[in-house]
């Protein structure tokens, strides 16, 4: 996928309006065509690189504000800095990587794809996740994975209070400590299949950690109407 720097289209948020920048990044949406963009001077702007729907590479040089890389599909977005609230919200596929920290509700409602946060994320990380994989190298805040339905959340650091409250079928892996578990979230056995699954996600995220060091958490399945015969449907 990588291209030489000469093919990188540099888009300057100090020069262009946000809508012009996003239109430029979205120009290949719906097509097979790739592209490589570098967004400079984001200066905490909102909704940078949202609504991408093509296998383009986008590098953002600096911190972003609310809702960066939202609704991402197929694109590979890297934020070289911190991300504000709601980064990679409702992602469908592709990859979003944050080299710094992420604010509240990172990866909320995501249906697919991979979100990697190299720093820490704050509260409500992965809230209502529906199939996205999220890997956080640092810590995450309280109420994370609230009502998480599907997908995997992997945390190398520590987790805040009320982890996985009202959890559905998302799978949670934590290497550090968990301050407290939310309603219906329990620690589960870590078996070979889980270690294999975790190793696969860590490799995809290019994060170096030993799956044997993690604990697994999941739903006790007492809070919602769940019929084990239907598990394949989730």
């Amino acid at each position: 996928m990588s291209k030489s720097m000469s093919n990188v289209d540099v888009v300057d948020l100090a020069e262009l309006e946000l809508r012009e920048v996003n239109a430029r990044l979205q120009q290949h949406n719906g097509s097979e065509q790739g592209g490589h963009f570098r967004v400079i001077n984001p200066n905490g702007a909102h909704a940078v690189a949202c609504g991408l729907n093509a296998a383009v590479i986008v590098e953002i040089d600096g911190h972003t504000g609310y809702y960066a890389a939202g609704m991402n599909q197929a694109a590979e977005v890297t934020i070289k800095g911190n991300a504000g609230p709601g980064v990679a919200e409702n992602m469908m596929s592709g990859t979003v990587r944050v080299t710094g920290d992420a604010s509240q509700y990172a990866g909320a409602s995501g249906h697919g794809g991979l979100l990697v946060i190299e720093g820490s994320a704050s509260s409500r990380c992965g809230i209502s996740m529906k199939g996205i994989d999220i890997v956080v190298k640092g810590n995450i805040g309280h109420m994370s994975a609230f009502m998480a339905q599907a997908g995997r959340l992997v945390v190398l650091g520590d987790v805040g209070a009320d982890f996985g409250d009202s959890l559905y079928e998302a799978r949670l892996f934590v290497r550090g400590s968990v301050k407290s578990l939310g309603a219906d979230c329990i620690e589960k056995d870590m078996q070979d299949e889980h270690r294999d699954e975790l190793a696969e996600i860590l490799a995809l995220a290019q994060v170096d950690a030993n799956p044997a060091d993690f604990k697994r958490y999941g739903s006790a399945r007492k809070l919602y109407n769940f019929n084990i015969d239907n598990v394949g449907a989730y």
Partner: protein
Amino acid sequence: MCGIVGLYLKKTSLEPELGRLFTPMLIEMSDRGPDSAGIAIYQDPVENEETIKLTLFHPDDNFDWDRLTELLNDELQLSATIDDVASHAVLICDGDPDLLTAAIEAYDPDLQIMSIGRVIEIYKEAGLPAAVAERFELAAMGGSHVIGHTRMATESAVTTAGSHPFSTGLDLCLVHNGSLSNHNWLRSELERRHGITCRTENDTEVAAAYLTAKLLEGRTLHQALDESILDLDGFYTFCVGTADGFAVLRDPIACKPAILAETEDWVAMASEYRALTSLPGVADACVWEPEPATVYSWGKEAA
């Protein structure tokens, strides 16, 4: 919504630049609060122990401030001086704050006292933050620290009185993004137990009054905020200033945004990072999101 911003200088040589550095921070938060804006700036401390300064507001831009001053001087045997800018004026004198307040309020019911202290001055007005900053010539002001608010009104009217910041005690000021749910009960408790009267129906003023009560009991700003976590119920991010202190606190749920940045020269807080991007050296600053229910404080009164 609402936007809050604060800037605390650690290097005195930057003090003449305070207003210039802070103005773009306030204006950047216009989207979060286009209804009104206000600042509490800590500048030109009065020299004498007995001297106080008051920021006054009158809705009439042509209000005769000199006449008020003459009358106060006659009535209370003072030698007060006054300096007005737009709808506000700063009165400096050696006098008893309670007697002054009574005399000022008796003179004209439209007159409002925005702040009393030895360092603080408050300027606030309905209108876009850029217009408010220009009206009070914010960019030309100096000082040690400043906190500001851009308001999107939810629970009370868009007026100067309803604008933030609120100051209740000497030199104490608080700006707030969020809403408090037990402010009515607290307001009556503060009046009953501590004799502290709030001037408006606003929830934020109650939080400021609460901190005033705690400081009067001898708590440091940091301790007062620590105790507020148990006593104040609601959603909030606070930025607080005292004569020589600056602090930030978010409630335990922490859904109201906040970001802090610090260099060797300054500490800055804002609702969003974009309000900090014009500060010198921000690219190399330590930037972090304040943890829930954790007090961050700077300055002499902090510890």
